[in-house]
């Protein structure tokens, strides 16, 4: 499991800049980032190097920010890896709510999952020997 920050933002010019300014000023480095867009607003989800610092800074800047834990999988950076994992989860009847991925020199390819049943998903991923157990920094 890795820590993820979810930030609620109104869909207005300058809001993403307002969030990233706070992170920049605290010297927080983004590792993975995605926006779920829903018309009048969006949810920014991100994995960062200094999670607690980023959480506190965003909170005191007035953002609605939630700290949660999501599954992460570490695989080789090559074709077919996301297919292999998502098929295994699907076969077990586990629903994926959202997913995003990033690659880095240090971690090969990391895939972030939010699923409807963490426990069962972890068993499946353990068995495949892909569950990421390290920490993001």
């Amino acid at each position, binding site marked *: 499991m890795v820590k993820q920050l979810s930030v609620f933002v*109104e869909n207005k010019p300058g809001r993403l800049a307002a969030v990233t300014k706070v992170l920049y000023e605290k010297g927080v480095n983004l590792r993975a980032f995605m926006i779920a867009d*829903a018309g009048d*607003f969006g*949810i920014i989800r991100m994995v960062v190097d200094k999670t607690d610092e980023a959480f506190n800074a965003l909170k005191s800047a*007035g953002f*609605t920010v*939630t700290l949660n834990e999501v599954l992460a999988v570490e695989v080789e950076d090559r074709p077919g890896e996301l297919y292999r994992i998502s098929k295994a989860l699907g076969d077990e009847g586990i629903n994926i*709510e959202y997913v995003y991925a990033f690659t880095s020199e240090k971690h090969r390819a990391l895939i972030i999952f*939010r699923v409807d049943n963490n426990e069962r998903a972890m068993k499946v991923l353990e068995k495949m020997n892909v569950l990421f157990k390290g920490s993001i920094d």
Partner: protein
Amino acid sequence: MYWSPVIERMPLEELKRIQEKKLRALVRNVYEYSPFYKRKFRELGIHPEDIRGLEDLKKLPFTRKQDLRDNYPFGMFAVPISQIVRFHASSGTTGKPTLVGYTEDDIRIWVESLCRGLVSCGVCNEDIMQIAYGYGLFTGGLGFHYAAEKIGATALPVSAGNTERQINLMKDLGVTVIACTPSYFLYMAEYAEKMGTSIKETNLRMGIFGAEPWSEETRKRIEDKTGITAYDVYGTSELSGPLFTECVERDGLHIWADHFLIEVIDPKTGENLGEGERGELVVTTLSKEAMPLIRWRTGDITIMETEKCNCGRTHPRILRILGRSDDMLIVRGVNVFPSQIEHVLMQIPEVGEHYMIILERKEELDEMTVQVELSDKVKIDKPADILNLTRKVEDRLRVVLGISAKVELVNPGTLQRFEGKAKRVIDKRKI
């Protein structure tokens, strides 16, 4: 504890006899000395002899805000300027300012009324009272100031604004009682957290909040958040300023019957309503010299109770102000009070205390949008979290108001904050 024990516990029948005597004197006095009332009485064919008892009150005409504007500045006065010792004026945001003059005795009775109220909710000479209502032409600051001093409490005349200094003084001096608008106090509580402290870390034990309608749920929120006991205060600038408060029973505000005669009427028809019925508060000043008012239409919606209070006081009570008859909004033909919206919002823990109501007209149809800040405790990870919460607030509003409103959830701290009276309605309709 009572400030004036004999009068505060006098049987209601005796109080009524005082009221009748004072009403007869008032009518004779304004007929003689107030050019405005003399003219009005003559137009309506009313002679002072026609008013013998309280049941004759309804023969007298109402006095409205417009009368004060039309007779600005001195046309409502019943004494020469030489006897007037002070002026207060309302801000005049909705027209010409309204000017109120006070004789020395008017000030004395104003202070007396508020002293009775403050003592009834437990303020004593040990208290340090931070007065964060505006000082100046507005009546809030000076009204509380003189009453606090009269009781022997220590007045801290900080006035409204400069929130950081307010919190520092509160901490440093060990302030025990604060008087301000409820919305400003909530802002102060939030500001204290930002400063890395909390109202709970101060000696503050009580707040006396008014100058704008607020709800029972807001009281609960204030008390949960800050650990103080919150009391309601009522008054209007035309009647003197802050005059009446709740007592420790918190079962309505005591209206001092020896100085003020109250009625509750249907704002549309002007008919008197009975006890327990919701309507507009109408007040006749029985003791005011400089600017007596007969059947003053306060515009405030409330319910009257005359049963003796458990605290032992016999004077009639009004419930907390439920809204304004004139800031009642008419949306798609339906009457909506902002207080109803506040009531709904305060019952939903995922949203905060700050909100705005925006009215627009799109293709001949009224649209109401309620913007409300998310509570800082809410957990959001998926768009559905926001959408479900939005729907929940919208559903509750529809049930209570009888019409639909669009809800926009926004981040904490993004809506405007108010240091004085909150202005939460933006009406962009051009009707």
